[in-house]
């Protein structure tokens, strides 16, 4: 995997501990002194009143909140530079934070005690106790399948066992499947592909391990690495990213390692090492400290290690000519180069399978387009709820609804709709269609796509939705897209179809279908329904100039579409036909030449040049 990391920001404090995308920017919280930065551009937006760090940032109600450590504050952002304290707790360590439905939750630990309490709020100003758990420490809160999971440890640091509770409001209980009899701490969790993935650190064997939970059963281990804990995890552009690293407290500034991995599925064996960061811990509050986090903005991953933030970008692949070593930035450019400079193609002999070279006579051609195939989207019309779709409600709420008559030709009664949203929130849901299996055809311009969706209009000017089909390369970069733009207004509830067709661009490996909504009211409901992604293909036809005799086995191979094997008799017949055609051509040329010579003599005579 060719990637590069470009530094986009830093802090004078010890480290970054948390991050969150919100609106068009990604926010980072620090350790050392509590501050908030955002990007782009890299900006210090807030130095908080007091405390030590910002362990977690969460969106709720159209804005974001954060908890601070060593001053048990909760802050709410009114604007990027205007944050207010909405809760001041006597428990000094705010650690976890998450929102689910109508509530936001925050976890606090008490100094010197193995005790955690969870607060909750529906309005961001009143924070009653949801759960007061005596016996352990909750490190992180993660919403999953309608409940908030409180992940951490029961017992003391480095002696207690991994433990988890779940609940909503004031109803909480232990999750027995997440309480194995293992010394350690659940350090991070993230929802991906319908599962809750959990990272277990603080283990006596010095390793961090990742597991998968389906709401009932815990499975794994899926991944294991020699690192003290998982610092942070996030989902970005179809991948789950994990940052593993050292114990927070180090005895010196000697370099420690952070390990960044990603996986498209979470399955064992699918974990891809992206980079090992070797950095020096920074002295803060009497010890050398380490912290880091990973986040995602606009499908692009960001990683913070100690006091620097990097943006991860794919490095363009280099396509090397197998004949002369020249390099190109795309398969199409390489193909053009080979066609002009090395007009040969490799053909496998159908008899002995030897690799042969055939001289090309042109750029090749295409067969006719085939018909469009079936819809490649899973659950394209909401009849199976949100199955197949990934949601980011961004503080709002998107729902499946069936209270309108369906669009023409609909296969069911359900639609994708919006329940509530606030302010700048943009709830969204997306699904990726993997087309990497057709890479060779796509890169020759041989795959065509037809996309469409029906939009249900809600006649409020402020209520809008949009549909985007993005064509992504192997690194998740958008090559091109079809975007309806924000749609809304009018006076009637109507269904309108939006559609597009094009040849899939060279380099495309994935198509992301994304529905988005926004509104400044709280009762809007523009819809999407009957989404389609269909492909059609055509054949690429190489054009060798002549038939080929396999020098290894003597088989005869015909030029053209299929490079098919010829019988000896057919081959001889073709050769004789070619000889006859050439003889006729030569005779005609000789006759023409004789005529031309005669004309020349006549003119010379006229000119007195005889």
């Amino acid at each position, binding site marked *: 995997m060719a990637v590069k990391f470009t530094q986009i920001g830093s802090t004078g404090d010890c480290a970054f501990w948390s991050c969150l995308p919100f609106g068009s920017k990604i926010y980072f919280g620090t350790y050392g002194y509590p501050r908030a930065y955002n990007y782009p551009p890299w900006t210090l937006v807030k130095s908080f009143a007091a405390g030590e760090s910002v362990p977690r940032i969460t969106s709720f109600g159209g804005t974001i909140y954060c908890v601070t450590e060593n001053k048990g504050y909760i802050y709410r952002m009114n604007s990027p530079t205007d944050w207010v304290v909405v809760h001041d707790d006597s428990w000094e360590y705010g650690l976890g934070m998450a929102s689910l439905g109508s509530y936001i939750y925050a976890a606090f630990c008490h100094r010197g005690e193995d005790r955690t309490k969870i607060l909750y709020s529906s309005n961001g100003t009143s924070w009653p106790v949801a759960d007061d758990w005596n016996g352990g420490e909750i490190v992180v809160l993660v919403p999953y399948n309608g409940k908030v999971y409180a992940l951490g440890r029961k017992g003391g640091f480095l002696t207690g066992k991994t433990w988890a509770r779940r609940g909503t409001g004031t109803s909480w209980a232990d999750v027995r499947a997440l309480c194995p009899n293992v010394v350690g701490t659940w350090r991070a969790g993230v929802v991906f592909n319908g599962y809750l993935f959990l990272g277990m650190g603080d283990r006596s064997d010095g390793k961090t391990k990742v597991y998968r939970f389906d709401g009932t059963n815990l499975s794994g281990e899926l991944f294991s690495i020699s690192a003290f804990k998982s610092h942070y995890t996030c989902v970005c552009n179809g991948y789950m990213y994990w940052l593993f690293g050292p114990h927070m407290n180090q005895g010196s500034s000697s370099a420690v390692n952070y390990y960044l991995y990603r996986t498209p599925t979470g399955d064992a064996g699918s974990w891809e090492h992206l980079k090992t960061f070797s950095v020096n811990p920074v002295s803060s509050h009497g010890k050398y400290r380490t912290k880091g986090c990973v986040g995602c903005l606009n499908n692009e991953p960001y990683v913070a290690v100690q006091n620097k933030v990097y943006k991860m970008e794919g490095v363009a692949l280099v396509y090397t000519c197998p004949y002369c070593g020249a390099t190109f930035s795309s398969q199409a450019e390489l193909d053009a180069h080979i066609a002009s400079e090395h007009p040969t193609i490799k053909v496998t002999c159908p008899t002995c399978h030897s690799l042969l070279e055939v001289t090309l006579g042109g750029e090749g051609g295409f067969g006719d387009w085939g018909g469009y195939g079936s819809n490649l989207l899973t659950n394209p019309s909401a009849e199976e709820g949100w199955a197949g779709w990934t949601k980011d409600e961004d503080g709002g709420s998107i729902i499946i609804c069936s209270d309108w008559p369906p669009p023409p030709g609909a296969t069911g009664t359900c639609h994708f709709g919006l329940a509530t949203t606030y302010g700048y929130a943009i709830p969204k849901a997306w699904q990726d269609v993997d087309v990497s299996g057709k890479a060779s055809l796509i890169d020759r311009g041989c795959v065509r796509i037809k996309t469409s969706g029906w939009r249900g209009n809600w006649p409020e000017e402020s209520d809008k939705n949009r549909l985007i089909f993005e064509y992504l390369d192997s690194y998740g970069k958008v090559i091109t897209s079809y975007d309806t733009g924000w749609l809304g207004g009018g006076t009637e509830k109507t269904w309108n179809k939006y559609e597009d067709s094009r040849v899939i661009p060279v380099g495309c490996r994935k198509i992301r279908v994304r529905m988005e909504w926004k509104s400044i009211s709280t009762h809007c409901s523009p819809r999407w329904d009957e989404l389609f992604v269909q492909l059609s293909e055509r054949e690429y036809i190489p054009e060798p100039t002549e038939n080929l*005799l396999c020098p290894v086995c003597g088989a005869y191979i015909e030029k053209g579409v299929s490079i098919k094997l010829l019988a000896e008799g057919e081959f*001889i017949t073709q*050769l004789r036909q070619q*000889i006859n055609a050439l003889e006729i051509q*030569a005779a005609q*040329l000789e006759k023409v030449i004789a005529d031309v010579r005669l*004309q*020349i003599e006549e003119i010379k005579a*006229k*000119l007195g040049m005889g």
Partner: protein
Amino acid sequence: MSLLSDLQAERDSKRAQVNSLESTLNQLNSELANLQAQYNSLCASLQEEIAELDRRTASLESQIADVKAQINELKARSGVA
């Protein structure tokens, strides 16, 4: 294999012959085009000369007619029949 090789060699020879003939024809066509250009240029020049001679002939014929008219007038005045 021998027959095939012979046929392929013959095919290649014929193709080379055709290529050579095409090359010869191209050269001859080029030479013909040059000669035709010379011829056309010469024809154009001759036509201009002829036209000039035609103009001069017409002028002389006109002068002769004038002189003849004057002679006839003088004869009439002098009573010469």
